[in-house]
């Protein structure tokens, strides 16, 4: 029985070690979508800018692989991502946008400040399309293949270093 006396001390030490380890290695808070590998959920998003092209799930199964970019004028990292999206568009990658919880006036200002690489922009005022994609924030980008299957999810802003990988993913998504 005497041997067991140190068990609580050892247990407490283990708990402390675990806590310190967790502090030093914070968990990854990114939420991975479980929709990768599945078909784009059916949706119809009205045009985010009056008079421009709207976006629906049918547009995402038109035979051409695409990037679907969830963004917003109120999202600061989206400003940083804009030049990289422009770079992708120049290299021939079709990009469509979902403007999450945005107003036309704010969006117009954002696009004139940061450039407009989008072939279509759908409006998502209540995050419904975002939730349907299994996305948890802005910016997030999905690679959708020509048949409308989600192939890849990129969480957070696209950095210049991600461009080649994304171009490759779009090529492979044919």
């Amino acid at each position: 029985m005497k041997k067991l006396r140190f068990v609580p001390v050892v247990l407490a030490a283990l708990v402390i070690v675990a806590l310190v380890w967790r502090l030093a290695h914070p968990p990854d808070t990114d939420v991975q979508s479980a929709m990768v590998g599945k078909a784009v959920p059916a949706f119809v998003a009205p045009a985010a800018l009056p008079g421009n092209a709207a976006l629906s799930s049918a547009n995402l199964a038109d035979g051409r692989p695409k990037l679907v970019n969830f963004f917003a004028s109120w999202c600061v990292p989206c400003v940083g991502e804009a030049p990289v999206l422009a770079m992708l568009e120049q290299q021939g990658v079709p990009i469509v946008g979902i403007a999450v919880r945005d107003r036309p006036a704010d969006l117009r200002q954002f696009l004139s400040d940061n450039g407009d690489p989008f072939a279509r922009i759908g409006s998502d005022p209540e995050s419904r399309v975002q939730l349907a994609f299994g996305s948890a924030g802005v910016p997030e980008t999905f690679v959708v293949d020509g048949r409308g299957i989600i192939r890849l999810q990129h969480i957070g802003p696209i950095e210049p270093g991600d461009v080649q990988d994304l171009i490759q993913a779009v090529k492979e998504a044919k």
Partner: protein
Amino acid sequence: MKPLLLMLALTFASPALADSSLPPAYWANRQLSDAQKEAQAQALMEEIRCLVCQGQSIADSDAELAGDMRDLVRRRIEAGEKPSAIRSWLIQRYGAWITFMPPSEPTTWPLWLAPFALLVAGAFVARARLKRRAAP
């Protein structure tokens, strides 16, 4: 001069908000008129994890996305959808992580068995102690 400038700058600084300028979704902070449906919605909302404040349920979270998720839950329940169907819709998108009531499957068995295992272990410890006390 410098401290004064700094103070002025701080006084007029506004926080960088990571929120949109749109008002909350219709059902985000509004109860359903049917009390039974509202109770169903409330129970489900307390069980669904907020995607932003990940330790909170969408019923507790002030995040905008949580408001949009409450809107989704109430709108679908109002339309007659079953809570279990809404739960599986969300699990299909975010995995079982999205609910605080993880489904019973092989990977979660230890989680469900742990309380009973601890209880049994506690009973053994208590028995050993009581025995020792009974026979000095």
